[in-house]
């Protein structure tokens, strides 16, 4: 009967902690939103499922070999870890603290000691290291997004880039909000944390994950979940703000049809953007470099098989592992925290401010030009959230005037928002990275 007891003592139900139960429910909730409500399912299905896996008691799928060794706390293994760390205590918490503050070579030694003790990295921990900690997955997804992006509407009306710029104000205002909360003692965010939280306002998943993985990996789970959830909520969040800031007359403005763009312009644009990044902001080079590379594969029309793969097999494969890896950051000990609540609140504020600033910038452009060439409804598309935000602009345009098709016009600021938030990401990595 010992064995029966062993099984029971090692079972999930016996070891289930309250936090894990909560996170299992959160994971199920994300699956519900993704599958039933169709909230960004391509990411939220893997994230939600990864979150459930990460919170299976005793399985340790989201933990490193060292964390797993500390969890099971066999005396001889703890001694080996202490020895590798050069400390005398064999209290798991002391060891963990010493481990977290030790340098890279000690890290490697402690990790090998844990493996000698028979523990191994969890599956999700490995996925996270290979896909996100290496920086590779968000960049590869950005390449795929580039290969799916048509810069035609932007090229036909370049001044919509200003709308994409203005909408990034949400990012920086949120940074200020986060440091404000810290200064008031309500939260405890470093400037790096604040910057990573702000990027939620960029409404761009891979950018948010990339920045968070560099500046603030411990907040990555909450930031990614917030970013994708709010992107899915665009059709609910944006319309009230857009209506509040525009008059009926403004919403009825029809825009002139976009000119046709030549192949040459479409090929030259990503190269030009890359060179501008190279000359002005090298820290944005990985993100925008891969984005431009993907777009060039698409437009140059001599490597269609590479473009196809970047848009399909490759981005799908990476999305699966990126999502599961983000889910690994939803383990109860890392996610259930007042901080997460702060991130969710700040993130939605960032979104709202970004939306508002895009609309206001469109009105300002009309003022400056002294005309009515821009329907301010397309300003909100400057936050990115491609193509959802552009569809929202189109929908509100049609409500005001059933002949007013804004979709293609809104695609300009929409893709401009992707560039804008990647630039903002580069600035933040430069200053606080």
């Amino acid at each position, binding site marked *: 009967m010992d064995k029966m007891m062993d099984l029971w003592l090692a079972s999930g139900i016996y070891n289930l902690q309250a936090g894990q139960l909560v996170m299992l429910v959160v994971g199920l909730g994300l699956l519900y939103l993704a599958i039933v409500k169709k909230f960004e399912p391509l990411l939220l299905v893997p994230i939600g499922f990864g979150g459930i896996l990460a919170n299976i008691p005793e399985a340790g799928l989201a933990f490193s070999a060292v964390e797993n060794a500390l969890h099971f706390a066999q005396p001889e293994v703890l001694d080996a870890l202490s020895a590798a760390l050069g400390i005398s205590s064999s209290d798991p918490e002391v060891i963990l603290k010493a481990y977290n503050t030790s340098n890279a070579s000690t890290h490697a030694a402690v990790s090998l000691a844990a493996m000698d003790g028979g523990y191994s990295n969890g599956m999700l921990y490995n996925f996270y290291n290979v896909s996100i900690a290496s920086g590779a997955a968000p960049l590869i997804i950005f390449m795929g997004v580039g290969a799916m992006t048509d810069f035609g509407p932007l*090229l036909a009306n370049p001044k919509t880039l200003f709308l994409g710029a203005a909408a*990034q104000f949400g990012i920086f205002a949120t*940074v200020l909000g986060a440091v404000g909360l810290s200064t008031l003692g309500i939260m405890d965010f470093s*400037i790096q944390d604040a910057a990573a939280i702000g990027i939620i306002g960029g409404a761009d998943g891979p950018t948010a994950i990339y920045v968070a993985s560099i500046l603030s990996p411990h907040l990555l789970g909450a930031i990614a979940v917030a970013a994708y959830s709010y992107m899915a909520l665009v059709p609910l969040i944006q319309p009230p703000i857009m209506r509040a800031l525009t008059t009926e007359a403004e919403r009825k403005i029809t825009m002139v049809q976009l000119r046709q*763009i030549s192949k040459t312009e479409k090929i030259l644009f990503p190269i030009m953007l890359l060179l501008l990044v190279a000359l002005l902001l090298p820290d944005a080079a990985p993100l925008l470099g891969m984005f431009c590379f993907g777009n060039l594969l698409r437009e140059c029309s001599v490597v269609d098989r590479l473009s196809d793969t970047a848009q399909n097999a490759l981005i799908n494969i990476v999305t699966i592992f990126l999502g599961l890896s983000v889910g690994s950051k939803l383990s109860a000990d890392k996610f259930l925290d007042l901080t997460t609540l702060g991130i969710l609140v700040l993130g939605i504020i960032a979104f709202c401010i970004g939306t508002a600033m895009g609309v206001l910038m469109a009105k300002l452009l009309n003022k400056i030009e002294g005309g009515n060439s821009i329907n301010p409804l397309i300003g909100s598309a400057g936050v990115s959230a491609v193509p959802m935000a552009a569809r929202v602009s189109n929908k509100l345009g049609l409500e005001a005037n059933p002949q007013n098709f804004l979709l293609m016009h809104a695609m300009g600021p929409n893709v401009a928002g992707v560039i*804008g938030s990647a630039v903002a990401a580069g600035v933040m990595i430069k200053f606080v990275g």
Partner: protein
Amino acid sequence: MESLISQGLSLMVFGMGFVFVFLTLLVGMTTLMSKLVVKFEPVAVAVPKKLKPRVTKTIDSNNDELVAVISAAVHKYRS
């Protein structure tokens, strides 16, 4: 060491400033580039994008199947 708030403030000012400078330059360069392209390459504008030839063998054999099936279908029905 600056206070957290002043760090946040300067990040906002310089961040937004830089984003605008960057995108303004991009507007300028894009406009210039488009003008040059339209000037030197007036003909190449606006052919409606034609169907891309598929690169993979997979699809080729698909097409073979397609033609076979269609021929069969048409043969059957035209008589």
